Structure formats: C-alpha cells, structure tokens
C-alpha cells in the first residue's frame, strides 16, 4: 500500500474511533434526585432515621450483569454493632465478617436462600459468605439481640446512597426504560419506572417511615432471645 493510501486509512480509522467514543458518551445518562424520609402520617421529617442508610438503585430493562469484585467486602462487628449497617454488593460477591470486639459474636441470617450461620467466634478475621441470590439479607447476632445490619445483593451495578441532605446522583446509566428503587430499612421499598434520559429536573422521592429501627426478630433457632423462665432469666 502506498503512502497516500495509508494516510487515508489512518484518517478513516481516527474518525471512526472518535465517532464511537462520542456515541458512547452520548448514551450514558445521569439520574439525580432527593430522598426525604417522613414521619408516620407524612407530617414532617422522620426523627432518628438516617437517610444516608438508604440505597437507590436503577435496574435497566436490558439487564446489565454486575461484576463482583475479586476481593471480598467487609462487615465488621465492633462495639456490639455492625459496621457498616447497610452494605450494598453485586450478586456473586463475597462478604467477610471480621470481629473487632474482645467478645464472642455469632453472626447469622435467616433470609431465605442467603441464610448463613457463622457460629460463635472470637476477635479475628472471621469467615466469608458468598451471596449468589439477589435480595435483602437481614444480618443479626445470636448473642446480642440489638445488633442488626442489612446486605443488599443487587443484580445491577447502578446503585448509590444519598448524602446527608438526601440528594443522590446515579451516573453512567444506559438509555432506555428501567426501574428505580429506593430502599431504606424503615420504609416500604419505593419503586418507579423511569425512562432515560430523564428529561431534565430532579426526582423527588418522599417515603414514610413505618418500621422500627430495631426490627422484631427471633434468634437463629427461631426462638425469642428472652426466655421467661427461671433458667433463662438473667
């Protein structure tokens, strides 16, 4: 091929690559909005509920399979609490449960196919659990009734949490129809079909707190943590 033909080919390839990149940029959408947690009855803001613990996620009509990372996520037991309280992971991810406390914990969940029981373990790196099913996993400690956390196992890579003001922004979303969900432990999940592009403006989501921060739950054996006989009574 002579020099003139080579130059012409390079120019064609350059314009093709530029057009492709521009095209991709033209199809990545943003979704902005604000989540407001309202008190029961919808009158005024909810007190004692943290909007930063909400999770906002978008599921496009054409599913985008999430890629679980190679390294596991972590949910730590420290000072008789789980940290973080809410953890969002792609389906197929592993989560490790290190114990930073000098006391024994028994982390477990009875959430359907994502159920697990790590048994009693002392301070240390803990064990891993792989979550192959999407859904909400409620995590408890069989020793300490007040310890609760949530793992959201999602089928989409498009998720975020609002800031302290409740504002959120999802980026890199594909054009076309999809479903937006707002999840918070104290509210019923809010969902809406949102076609992208959004058409300007911001989405305002107002949800009412209807559940207690410490959910009613039983221990891993399905029994009450409190026995009311002379042997279980502390």
């Amino acid at each position, binding site marked *: 091929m002579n020099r003139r033909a080579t130059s012409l080919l390079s120019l064609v390839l350059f314009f093709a690559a530029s057009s492709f990149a521009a095209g991709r940029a033209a199809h990545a959408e943003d979704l902005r909005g604000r989540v407001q947690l309202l008190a029961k009855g919808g009158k005024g803001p909810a007190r004692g509920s943290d909007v930063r613990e909400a999770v906002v996620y978008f599921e496009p009509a054409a599913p985008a399979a999430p890629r679980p990372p190679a390294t596991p996520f972590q949910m730590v037991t420290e*000072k008789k609490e789980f940290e973080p309280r809410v953890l969002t992971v792609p389906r197929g991810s592993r989560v490790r449960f290190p114990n930073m406390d000098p006391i024994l914990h028994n982390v477990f969940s009875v959430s359907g196919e994502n159920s697990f029981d790590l048994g009693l373990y002392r301070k240390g790196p803990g064990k891993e659990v792989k979550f192959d099913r999407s859904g909400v996993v409620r995590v408890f400690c069989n020793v300490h009734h007040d310890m609760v956390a949530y793992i959201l196992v999602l089928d989409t890579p498009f998720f975020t949490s609002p800031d302290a003001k409740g504002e959120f922004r999802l980026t890199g979303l594909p054009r076309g129809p999809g479903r937006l969900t707002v999840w918070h432990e104290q509210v019923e999940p809010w969902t809406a079909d949102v076609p992208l592009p959004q058409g300007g403006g911001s989405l305002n989501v107002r949800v009412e707190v209807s559940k207690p921060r410490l959910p009613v739950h*039983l221990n891993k054996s399905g029994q009450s943590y409190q026995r009311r006989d002379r*042997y279980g009574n*502390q």
Partner: protein
Amino acid sequence: MSWSGKVCVGCGVLLWLTFATPVQAAEETAETEETAEESGLRLKWGLEVKTHYRDSDLNRFAVPFPFTPEQLPVGETRGFQETVNPGSHLEISTATLLLDATWSETLQAHGKIDFIDLYDRNPTSTDKKVDVDEIWLRFGRETDPATLSERSGLYLKIGKLPHFERQDDRHLESYGLVSTAFNRFEDTGAELGIDLGRHVYVKVSATQGNPVFIRDPNALAGDNGTPDQMRLNPDPELGTGIVILYDAEVEDLDLDGDLEMGAGLGLRFADEGGRNGIDVLAWGYQRTLAETVELEGTFYGGDLDLLRGPADLFPFPALEGDEKREVGANLWLYIGGFSLFGQYVDQELAGLPRTGIEGEVAWSFDLPLVWALGGRQLFPYIAPAVRYSKLDNDFRNPRQTPAPSLAWDWEKLDAGVRLGIVQGIDLTLEYADNSFILGSGAEAENNELLTTLRWRT
C-alpha cells in the same frame, strides 16, 4: 478452714471454671448437640451455685403459749418467735443440677435437683439436703408468659412441676409474701395447657396439693417441730422464724387422697419477637385439706393438724370445714428491658380468709462494652428491681398460740439491683423491709440484707 475461707475457695474455683473453657465448651456443646440431633434426642445439663452474704436483724416476739419449763431453754420463762439466724453470715445456699432432654419440639423432659438447698429447705433445716425440686415430662408445646403461641395447640405436663401462675422470672433472689404463701413450691400431678389461637389460653391442673405449713418469709424458713425441740430444755441453733402460713413443698408422691384441682383462663398479646407483651390470667384452685400431712424434718403435721394447734387444742377460732380455696389473677407486662409482674390472691383456708397482693417492677439495661474477659463482656447489664407484697390475714389468733405471727397483717418491700458480672455470673444486692402489725396493734419489723453471687452454666 473457716466457713468464709471455704466459700472464698469455692468462689475462686467457680470463677476459674467459668473462664477456663468458654469458647471451647461452646464448640464442644455444638458438636454434641449436632450428634444428638441426628438421633432425635438432645441432652442439656447445667449447674447453678449460689453463695450469699446475709445480714438478718435480730427480733424476738413473746408468744402467748403455755410452754412448760422443760420445753423452754434454761433460764427462759416464756417462748418466743425469733429471727431464724440473726447476724452476718456467708453461706452457700444452693447447688443445683439442671437436666433437659428434648426429643422433639413436642416432647421434653426436665429435672432440677437441689443440693444443700439451705433457703428452700422445707420445711425446716432438718429436711432433706438433696431434693428433687422438679421432674416432669411434657408432651406438646408450652408458651412462655406474654409470648404469642405459634398456633392453637395443647400440652400435657406430668410429674413434679411448678404452679402455672408462679412468676418464674423473678429479678431478685428473695420472694414476696404472696409468692411465698401461695405458689413458691412445686406440686406433683398433671397440668394441661390449651392455646385457643394465638391469644387465648386455658390451664387445668390436677395435683396432690401442697401441704399447709409455716415458714419465715425471709431467706431461711425457720425451725419448728424439729428433733432438737423434743429435747429437755431445748436451745436449738436456729430460731423459729417470724412465720406465715404457706403452701409447703410436696414431700412424697401420694395421689390417694383428694386432689387439688386448678384452672386458669388467660389472654395475651405480644410482638412476634417476644420482647414486648402483656398477659393476664385469672385462676383458681380448690382441694380438701387433709387431717394431717407428715412432713420430713418436723414433728408438726401439716394441713388441719397445723391449723388446730398443738395437740389439736389451740385451733383458730374461725376454723371451719376442710376446704382450701384460692382465686387469683396475674399480670405480666414486658416492654423491651422493662418488666412488671403482678399477682392478687384471695384464699379461704378452712374458714380462715386472707388476701394477698404482690407486684414486681424491674428494668434491665444493657451496658456498653468496655472490658472483656475470656471472650465475654464484663458487666453486660444492670437490672434494678423493686417488689412490694402485702398479706392481709382476716382472722384472729387463738388466745394461746405458739405462732401468733400467722394472723398478723404483713407488708414487705424488697428492693435491689442485679449486676451481670459476665455471662453465667451475676451479683444481686437487695434489702427486705419486712413489717407486720402485732396483735397489740404495734408495728414491728424483721428486715434482712441479702447479697447473692450466682454462677450458672
């Protein structure tokens, strides 16, 4: 080695046992349970040991009874009711073995054997030192108070078992007047419980019936009719106690006589987790008193023999018939760490009426994690508790009686706090303000401080 030295060594051994094998024991237990589950039988056992520091006021009340000089200690001219064992004492009151065998959710056996049994010794210090408190077999599911049942159902419990109206989760070591008088001790027989849906339930029992006897409502029961007192000029080590009439422990299995029939109807509401709940129960019992009941450790007989006084010559004036009847009501209320228990009883005992009311309020607070030992939190909780109880005896004493306190009106206020030291060990500090109205109308007291270190596996 002195008694206090022995107690200290004993406590040290218990603390070592507690911390030496926490996690390994849990893992071994898990393995054992897994093995047993495969065969359908799960065995569980536990130990409970209590040591006490007790400080009992010294009180004596002269009794209007014609004791002969030979029946009194040398130098005494009158008989007295007096504090059982006044002063400060360090003692091990109980060593208990607990056994549970579970074949399935609907078939369970339970045993509780007391060794030493100093405070529950019944009815005197010369009673058996090893005592089977409970031994029963249960078919079906039994729902805890103020907890919703899973569904309609029933259970049958057979053996030596606690009264269904008894408060089992007391937050102090002491007992109130009502719980001492009416349902402290176990009875032998059968109990049927029926859950009608999740909220309504029925209890029915047919048992031998606890014999009526006398004991001090403080820690120690008191010695009455013991072999010591048969000697010439007896001067027994333990006093009589300032006693009330109470339902003593069933000593032997004897279902030949009239059974005590009991029934209750209850209503409960609770959340699914069982942390918050309310339960009300109306109940009643009825039986025919025996002419006499032989009790180990005393030459006094129980039931009518007791109520007629020594040699049947000093009966209560209002004594009539042989029926023993109680009606009562219970309230259980739980809101998180807060608990309230209330009980009212109206009894007629061979024509002798009396009523009692008792209420206990307690609040358990989880403490923050600051220290730990052996994988367990040190000081995980603190639970203050207050109990008030009142016993109104609406009958008069006979003119001459060795135990005039039986007809006095009583009030008791127990206040204390329980501190969790570590899982399985707790310390309870409480004070009993025990007051009564004498026959003269004057008010008197017989108070007691009790500190209990309890160790349980």
